[in-house]
């Protein structure tokens, strides 16, 4: 089934000045500047949003769903990301923030905490204790990292934990309970996730590891921030408050590792740092480590591209809730129920995650070897300073682009200037 892969990260051409900032930060070298505008190579893009974070002209953006989709359903549920709690001053309280989101136009607000707590208990008491487990295991909660692994570290796909993310777990429980409560069918209930993450938007539309997400629409925290601010003063505190220490920490780098209480764990955040650590894993240097918590964003999800608040300030605000929260507990009865839901596939990544080979020069090895020789030859004539003016992130990428036939109009300005200078002299 070749369904079109819908990326969430896009470019607003009218704002782009072709400055090369995004070119340099893309972890899969998926951006080129052509005719003065940035272009994203769709096969390489993992929707991590690093380009959105760095663009000084706010030209990089995300396509999300529109609130008008709520009209399609008879009953609407909203699941806000746990990062929401760090976006406002901590004297406001979680209950008010959740009610402010609900007031935007939803019938019910469900806390992501229920998904995080289930994840913690199922991981800690069951999945991480399974015999024959392949160390180190890698968390499955960062969709950008899963896509990075597909493209750059396909050998590590088996190390990814096959538990669905807390958001998907919470959404599945929310919809199932709503169906029971209202008597409506699955298709009449809408569920919207409020997210900090571009890769999450992509993964709802193009899921990896599951056939279809229970989430119907994704809206960014950024775009409804104004609505929440306007609503906050009008809503009550509400009796909502299922947040536990563990679920609140989930959105902060290191929170997952701390929650599952594994002895030998490693926490790494920031996509270039994750790349360095995963390279060590590939070499077999980290087989004594049991659990690796990877986040593409610095600081964890609180550093996501679609948030308003600075990640360090957000962390500080969430920590003030953590201090007041209880430790998560779960009865044996509930734990067994959720372990069953994992084992029978409801909470599990049941579909195989396939490697994506986009780095190769050609599908035929002999042609690849010949092309690589051409790349080496071309590079001998390039300055090697990776300035990006030609529109490719590095001199090597420029040589590869020429050999692959991607763009024959691009010119190395540095060599051209050298040529002028030599002729003048």
């Amino acid at each position, binding site marked *: 089934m070749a369904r079109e892969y819908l990326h969430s990260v896009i470019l607003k051409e009218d704002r782009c000045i072709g400055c090369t900032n995004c070119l340099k930060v893309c972890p899969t070298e998926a951006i080129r500047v052509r005719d003065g505008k940035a272009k994203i190579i769709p096969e390489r893009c993992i929707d991590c949003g690093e380009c959105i974070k760095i663009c000084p002209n706010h030209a990089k953006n995300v396509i999300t769903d529109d609130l008008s989709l709520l009209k399609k359903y008879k009953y609407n549920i909203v699941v806000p990301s746990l990062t929401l709690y760090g976006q406002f001053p901590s004297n406001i309280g979680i209950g008010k923030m959740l009610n402010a989101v609900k007031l935007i136009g939803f019938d019910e607000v469900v806390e992501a905490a229920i998904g995080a707590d289930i994840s913690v208990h199922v991981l800690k008491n069951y999945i991480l204790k399974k015999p024959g487990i392949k160390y180190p295991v890698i968390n499955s909660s960062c969709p950008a990292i899963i896509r990075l692994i597909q493209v*750059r570290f*396909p*050998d590590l796909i088996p190390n990814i934990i096959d538990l669905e993310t807390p958001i998907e777990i919470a959404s599945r429980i929310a919809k199932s309970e709503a169906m029971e409560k209202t008597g409506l069918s699955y298709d009449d209930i809408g569920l919207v996730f409020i997210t900090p993450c571009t890769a999450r938007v992509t993964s709802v539309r193009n899921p990896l590891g599951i056939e279809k997400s229970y989430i119907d629409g994704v809206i960014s925290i950024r775009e409804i921030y104004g609505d929440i601010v306007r609503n906050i003063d009008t809503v009550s505190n509400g009796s909502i408050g299922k947040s536990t220490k563990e679920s609140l920490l989930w959105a902060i780098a290191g929170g997952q590792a701390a929650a599952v209480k594994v002895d030998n764990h490693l926490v790494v955040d920031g996509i270039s740092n994750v790349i360095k650590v995963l*390279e060590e894993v*590939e*070499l*077999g240097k980290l087989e004594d480590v049991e659990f690796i918590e990877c986040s593409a964003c610095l600081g964890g999800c609180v550093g996501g591209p679609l948030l308003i608040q600075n990640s360090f300030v957000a962390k500080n605000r969430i920590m003030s809730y953590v201090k007041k929260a209880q430790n998560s507990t779960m009865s044996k009865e509930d734990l067994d129920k959720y372990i069953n839901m994992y084992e029978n596939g409801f909470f599990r990544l049941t579909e195989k995650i396939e*490697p994506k*080979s986009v*780095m*190769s*020069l*050609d*599908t035929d*090895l*002999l042609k*690849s*070897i*010949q092309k*690589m*020789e051409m790349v*080496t030859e071309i590079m001998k004539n390039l300055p090697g300073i990776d300035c990006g003016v030609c529109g490719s992130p590095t001199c090597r990428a420029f040589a*590869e682009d020429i050999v692959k036939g991607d763009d024959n109009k691009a010119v190395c300005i540095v060599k051209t200037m050298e040529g002028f200078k030599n002729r003048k002299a």
Partner: protein
Amino acid sequence: MDNIKYIFEVEKDDFERAGEASSQIKKILRQLGLDSGIIRRVSIAAYEAEINLVIHSNGGTISIEIDPGKVTIYANDKGPGIENVELAMKEGYSTATERVREMGFGAGMGLPNMKRCADNFNINSILGQGTSIVMQIYMKDGV
């Protein structure tokens, strides 16, 4: 021309750059589109050879030759040579100094790992002169 060759210099005690050559090699192989299992074996073999050059040798080179049928790794150094090759090939046996072991290296698994990763493994050493290792890893059918 249907094969390519790359040579990397490795300096004695250069821990800062240890692993750079094998990292480059891995990037090259990924670009050629080789099967990821082959890439892993070549990377591990090249890495162990490179670390050995840094820890034990007076400096040397790692070269790699790729043709449609196989990848060949050459590791050559200018000394000091291995006193007892058979002992060196034993798992866990290490001649690394205390300082090197404190840094997390010298577990005694380098040569055995290299042999395990390669389809063909050849080692020659002359005390006082140097060591040369040749490893071949064959492409799978249809890759």
